[in-house]
């Protein structure tokens, strides 16, 4: 059968069974606009049909959780009337198609998820992964994505204060672009995605609707309704940070004036989602008039209007007596607005277009009755082989190994990226990019918000459960370095094709690992995102869950530890469990042996808790704290040397120990006798000072070589 003769539901990416359920739900043949709505709302991206059953495993409760998973962003209580909203999202496929706009619209979308909650977005993070930079295509994607995040984030006026950069061949055909946003609000400003009570009016705010990204979220990227609209292919979405900036200010003013009952952003599934979800959540009906929608292209059909993913739009639900005030605020901020609907008794979503009813469905059914798949899972048969082949040990000279690691673009300086991002706006970035965790102060309080995001496809490939758990522990230790204690987690689960049982197994293991670690630390998962189908030509990416962890420092240390605060004569201490030499999944294994095998060291919940507690206390006393992660102990010390412009001597000879990435370890630097560390939990490994870095018996590396190798790792590759 050719595409043109396929039934409509298949052209929209729906299976025959899903079509049957719509028939059953409505008790009749669905109209085209109805099918369009179900197809986007029941897509993997919007309905989480393959993952929902597993996500229930996450611990989601804690006394400080104000809003858990299910809304646009998770919200936690920071005390004294302050709340924080956090959300993470992926834009992997759009960024592969068009890196600049894909990444830019990813930033736009995550911001809307946060200011929908009533919060002012105060910071952004990006977690980006590409194939190796010796390939021109990967350089093009990397450059485009970074410019897109910069272009949107800088102009919209929200600082990008951190993130992650990784390069691995598994991302060559499928880069990962995840973005995370943190918002801050006063409790009374909290706004939910609810339609309110009958009589409430739906006001569509922001950019005019066009044929952007129609069906972009559905499996079928290029659905067509008839031959005539065939040439009106869905087009790439273009972001407009200027419009979004005005939208943020207008919405915040509406919240402050208490004018709205609820707000929903228009992201994936556009108007279909922004009408059905709020009505469903509120248990009400909604009448929508598509002719009122302000459009940028003429002749759009009802399905097109309902599926369009035009950017920078918000739906506000406004009590009728406040409508004039809302329209006046929109006018003053110079954004367009249109009254497009009214909340009704009952539970039916009724959509009219050109005088006719084009859809009449139970509002809640679009979200609540979405299919739920229990996909088969199977432990991959290759994983035992991989784990049982021991990692090779390092024979090369440790100084050489360290220089090769510092020259690796995933370990070298991130300045080429983060200096393209405004990371200082709002005057609150106390610790910015290039550190373990960022630290954002809340002016007028003693509080600081510490955030770390962590992913590690290598570890998770070798052991998805332990690898995922280790991400949570690592992120928690990172925020402890700023004096904070962990509060909550969001996760972005980037996986391959869920129709493969091996991928589903990896996914389940990863959810389990994250859950176990969160349980052990007593912190909830307050939101997240799932990105499946990250595969090219049948090859899946490494399982790459990304964890974003929010910590609260209250009070914030007066002088938070920083990498550039080391001085001549300070002692170097390593805190954490007794060292091993395990290189499984490490950067050294990838860079030196170009292999990936062995069994990574399992996390130890007790040790994790102890080290995190000890570290967050030490942050109030010592000038330098730095966690041991990519590149191991040697790399951690080198990073302090580079930032502080001072050499060091490390009294460790074993290359395994120097480059192992075993969990729960952090280095501290301070003048002799300043701090007492508990015996058994800490060991002295060296001294800061001089003009070079000496690792055990290896030849010293002069500071200038160390610094330039690290600084040039990305720029020298991007220069072509």
């Amino acid at each position: 059968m050719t595409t043109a003769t396929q039934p409509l539901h298949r052209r929209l990416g729906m299976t025959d069974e899903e079509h049957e359920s719509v028939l059953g739900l409505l008790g009749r043949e669905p109209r085209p606009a109805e099918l369009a709505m179900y197809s986007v709302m029941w897509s993997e991206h919007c309905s989480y049909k393959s993952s929902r059953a597993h996500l229930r495993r996450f611990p989601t409760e804690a006394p400080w959780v104000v809003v858990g998973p299910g809304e646009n962003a998770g919200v936690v209580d920071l005390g004294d009337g302050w709340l924080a909203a956090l959300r993470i999202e992926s834009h992997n496929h759009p960024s592969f198609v068009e890196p600049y706009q894909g990444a830019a619209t990813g930033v736009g979308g995550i911001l809307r998820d946060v200011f929908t909650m009533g919060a002012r977005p105060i910071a952004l993070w990006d977690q980006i992964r590409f194939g190796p930079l010796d390939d021109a295509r990967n350089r093009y994607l990397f450059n485009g994505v970074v410019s897109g995040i910069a272009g949107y984030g800088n102009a919209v006026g929200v600082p990008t204060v951190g993130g992650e950069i990784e390069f691995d061949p598994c991302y060559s055909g499928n880069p990962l672009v995840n973005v995370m946003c943190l918002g801050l609000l006063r409790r009374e400003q909290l706004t939910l995605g609810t339609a309110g009570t009958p009589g409430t009016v739906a006001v569509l705010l922001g950019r005019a609707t066009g044929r952007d990204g129609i069906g972009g979220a559905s499996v079928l990227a290029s659905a067509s309704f008839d031959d005539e609209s065939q040439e009106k292919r869905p087009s790439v979405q273009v972001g407009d940070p200027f419009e979004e900036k005005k939208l943020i200010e207008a919405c915040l003013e509406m919240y402050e004036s208490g004018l709205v009952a609820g707000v929903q952003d228009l992201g994936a599934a556009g108007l279909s989602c922004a009408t059905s979800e709020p009505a469903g959540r509120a248990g009400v009906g909604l009448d929508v008039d598509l002719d009122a929608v302000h459009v940028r292209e003429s002749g759009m059909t009802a399905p097109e209007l309902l599926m369009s993913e035009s950017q920078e739009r918000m739906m506000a639900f406004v009590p009728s007596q406040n409508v004039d005030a809302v329209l006046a605020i929109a006018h003053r901020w110079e954004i367009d607005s249109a009254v497009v609907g009214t909340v009704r008794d009952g539970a039916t979503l009724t959509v009219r277009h050109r005088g006719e009813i084009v859809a009449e469905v139970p509002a809640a059914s679009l979200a609540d009755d979405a299919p739920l798949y229990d996909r088969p899972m199977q432990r991959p048969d290759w994983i035992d082989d991989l784990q049982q082949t021991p990692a090779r040990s390092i024979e090369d000279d440790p100084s050489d190994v360290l220089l090769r690691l510092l020259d690796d673009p995933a370990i070298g300086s991130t300045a080429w990226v983060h200096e393209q991002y405004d990371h200082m706006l709002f005057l609150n970035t106390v610790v910015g990019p290039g550190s373990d965790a960022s630290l954002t102060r809340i002016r007028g309080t003693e509080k600081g918000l510490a955030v770390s995001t962590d992913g590690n496809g290598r570890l998770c490939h070798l052991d998805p459960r332990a690898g995922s758990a280790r991400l949570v522990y690592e992120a928690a230790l990172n925020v402890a370095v700023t004096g904070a204690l962990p509060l909550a987690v969001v996760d972005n689960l980037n996986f391959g094709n869920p129709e493969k049982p091996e991928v589903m197994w990896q996914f389940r293991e990863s959810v389990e690992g994250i859950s176990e670690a969160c349980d052990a630390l007593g912190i909830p998962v307050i939101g997240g995102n799932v990105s499946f189908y990250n595969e090219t030509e049948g090859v899946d990416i490494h399982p790459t869950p990304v964890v974003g962890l929010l910590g609260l420092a209250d009070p914030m240390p007066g002088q938070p530890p920083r990498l550039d605060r080391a001085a001549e004569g300070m002692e170097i201490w390593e805190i954490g469990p007794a060292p091993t030499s395990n290189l499984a999944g490490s950067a050294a294994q990838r860079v030196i042996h170009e292999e990936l095998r062995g069994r990574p060291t399992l996390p130890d919940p007790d040790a994790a808790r102890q080290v995190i507690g000890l570290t967050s206390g030490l942050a109030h006393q010592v000038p330098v704290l730095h966690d041991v992660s990519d590149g191991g102990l040697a790399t951690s010390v080198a990073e302090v040397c580079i930032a502080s412009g001072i050499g060091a001597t490390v009294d460790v000879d074993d290359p395994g120990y120097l480059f192992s990435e075993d969990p729960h370890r952090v280095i501290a630097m301070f003048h002799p006798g300043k701090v007492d560390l508990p015996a058994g939990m800490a060991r002295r490994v060296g001294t800061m000072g001089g003009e070079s870095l000496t690792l055990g018996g290896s030849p010293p590396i002069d500071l200038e070589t160390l610094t330039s190798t690290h600084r040039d790792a990305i720029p020298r590759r991007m220069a072509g």
Partner: protein
Amino acid sequence: MKVTVEITRRPEIADPQGTTIQRALHDLGHNEVMSVRVDRVIHLEVEGEDPNRVQARVEEMCRQVLANPVLEDFTVAVSE
């Protein structure tokens, strides 16, 4: 030879810049302006004898770097 490349945004792709400029022109009283689109022109000087060969080479450059095929179309004109 002088080569002029015009790179135009595909008509179906949103153009926030054009929309904003149009709004500004209206604010300034130029209400007769119905639409605005901003494109790029690249003027190249290229060594070569054969206009057809130069044309082909520049078209290749367009596909490689000058234009973004996802968002833009291009035309190449060789003169002299």
